[in-house]
């Protein structure tokens, strides 16, 4: 037997999945609250202790971890035009698994600089200008950053004609800098992969240590990526397959957590109807969006604020006369695992609302325009209507007996036909919580990882 231990240092729980790589089987799962404030290895040991003895004592072929602990990977991005290079930088950071806490555009003001210092991101992504395009703004922003107290690594991913000068300005003032390809080499071209890879490298080499997670590396081979990146990698592997093992094709993963809801879509999402014209920045093949205001624990109240009590109750099956109080309790006791029927029902209702909003924000939209020659349809964002697979992951999809309801609520609706959500996908849940592990294994054991994902995803229709 070739044993692999895959660990996720989550914001709330540290989870361990033990996998037999030869037989492609999940052997055991254990979780315990994350202990990042004291010593990350305490929670890890507690989770390990939950695994059956024979497994915990066996030698491992592979021990890899992902992390979203200690606030996750907090990034700030800077670009020139909000819809163009600033948005391209934003997408690159999201695709790298980051939590983007602020996006700036144009020349930074003194007020913004002060705010940026206060925000103290883990990584700053500095873009601006297409290749050969505007140089002045990124240079000016580099000069401003050089004089600031910012001390995180700065990744330069803007106009290549200015990159060296930007680097010189920042390095001369002692900043840590790295240069990569422009995220927006031309107005109609998005180039996020080089920046994504660089962010992951910075995460491994610097951020883990800066966040006090280095200690965990005495036990694991490495914390090799942020958890959202692991899920995005799993999504990509599952959609695209490998040379010898076929993938599923275009798919969407909804990841509902305590603090955020992520949506990952793999597929081009070009217009599925004839006569529809695509507008806006091109979409990345593997796209991730993060809803920082939708989470069923820390942000339970925010779901209530956004959707309203009426909508939450419409998604519930039981009456919740004390809805406000129940939600407050959840947001305060974030480690709550639902036990009573009422708790389970409220979790389902909150998750359904979060998933609906997150899907609507992720999916593209059609806009109908009238011109002298008649009506036209313009598409912004991805058309997901023909995507064939929809997968749910996160704690609620492990425990909840009606988890498929959450996903069904996110589908295309005749009430809002211009929102391009999936119409008739196959529905799966990550009932064994294995997708992060699949992402961690994807580089080293792609075929094995892919077959494990196919085997353990629970199919509902």
């Amino acid at each position: 037997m070739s044993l692999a231990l895959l660990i996720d240092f989550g914001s709330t729980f540290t989870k361990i999945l033990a996998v037999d790589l030869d037989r492609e089987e999940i052997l055991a799962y254990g979780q315990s609250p994350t202990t990042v404030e004291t010593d990350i290895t305490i929670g890890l040991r507690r989770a390990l202790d939950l695994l059956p003895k024979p497994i915990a004592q066996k030698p491992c072929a592979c021990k890899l971890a992902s992390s979203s602990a200690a606030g996750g990977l907090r990034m700030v991005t800077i670009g020139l035009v909000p819809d163009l290079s600033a948005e391209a930088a934003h997408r690159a950071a999201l695709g790298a698994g980051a939590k983007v806490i602020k996006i700036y555009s144009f020349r930074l003001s003194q007020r913004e600089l002060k705010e940026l210092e206060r925000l103290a991101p883990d990584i700053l992504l500095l873009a601006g200008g297409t290749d050969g395009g505007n140089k002045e703004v990124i240079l000016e922003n580099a000069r401003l950053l050089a004089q600031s107290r910012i001390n995180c690594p700065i990744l330069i991913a803007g106009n290549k004609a200015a990159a060296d000068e930007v680097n010189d300005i920042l390095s001369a003032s002692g900043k840590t800098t790295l240069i990569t390809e422009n995220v927006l080499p031309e107005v109609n071209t998005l180039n996020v992969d080089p920046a994504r890879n660089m962010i992951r490298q910075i995460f491994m080499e610097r951020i883990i240590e800066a966040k006090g997670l280095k200690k965990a590396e005495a036990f694991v081979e490495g914390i090799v990526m942020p958890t959202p990146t692991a899920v995005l990698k799993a999504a990509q592997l599952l959609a695209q397959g490998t040379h010898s093992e076929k993938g599923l094709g275009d798919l969407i993963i909804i990841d509902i957590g305590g603090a955020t809801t992520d949506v990952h879509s793999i597929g081009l999402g070009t217009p599925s109807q004839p006569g529809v014209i695509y507008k806006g920045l091109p979409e990345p093949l593997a796209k991730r969006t993060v809803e920082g205001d939708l989470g069923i624990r820390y942000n339970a109240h925010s779901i209530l604020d956004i959707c309203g009590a009426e909508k939450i109750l419409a998604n519930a099956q039981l009456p919740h006369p004390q809805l406000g109080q129940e939600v407050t309790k959840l947001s305060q006791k974030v480690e709550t695992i639902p036990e009573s029927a009422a708790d389970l029902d409220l979790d389902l209702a909150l998750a359904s609302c979060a998933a609906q909003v997150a899907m609507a924000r992720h999916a593209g939209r059609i806009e109908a325009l009238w011109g002298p020659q008649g009506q036209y349809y313009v598409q912004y964002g991805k058309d997901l209507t023909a995507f064939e697979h929809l997968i749910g992951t996160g704690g609620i999809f492990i425990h909840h007996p009606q988890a498929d309801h959450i996903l069904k609520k996110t589908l295309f609706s005749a009430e809002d036909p211009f929102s391009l959500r999936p119409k008739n996908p196959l529905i799966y849940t990550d009932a064994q919580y294995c997708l992060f592990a699949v992402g961690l294994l994807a580089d080293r054991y792609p075929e094995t990882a892919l077959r494990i994902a196919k085997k353990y995803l629970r199919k509902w229709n």
Partner: protein
Amino acid sequence: MTLAKRSITIVLGVLGVDAHVVGNKIMAHALEKEGFKVVNIGIFSTQEDFIKAAIETAADAILVGSLCGHGELECQGFREKCLEAGIGDIHLVVGGNLVVGKQDWAEVEKRFLKMGFNRAYPPGTSPKKVIEDLKNDLQERLQGR
């Protein structure tokens, strides 16, 4: 510096709810052949789309195509928006079926120049003529600076 020594960036597109793509492609091809860097934002573009692309690419000129006959309405306020966005002195060119009905071109041209366009062209203008003027106009600007 002469024009030939530096690459000239042109933002090209069709303004408004207008699907006429053929002229746009021909113009892009003709400009590229003459060595211009063409940022073609395509059909159904708004004034804002042109201006945003011009800022990001530090463009030298904006070439607006309008075939649907609503040009006069669609083009209003273009120069003012450029001014507001910090590229107020950008070279602005417009051409196509700018108005409907039989109107005297000299009058039409006057109206577009008054709106702040540096050049306006009637239907049937050859791309060659537009490019020639563009080269001369931009060279003149360069020397004027």
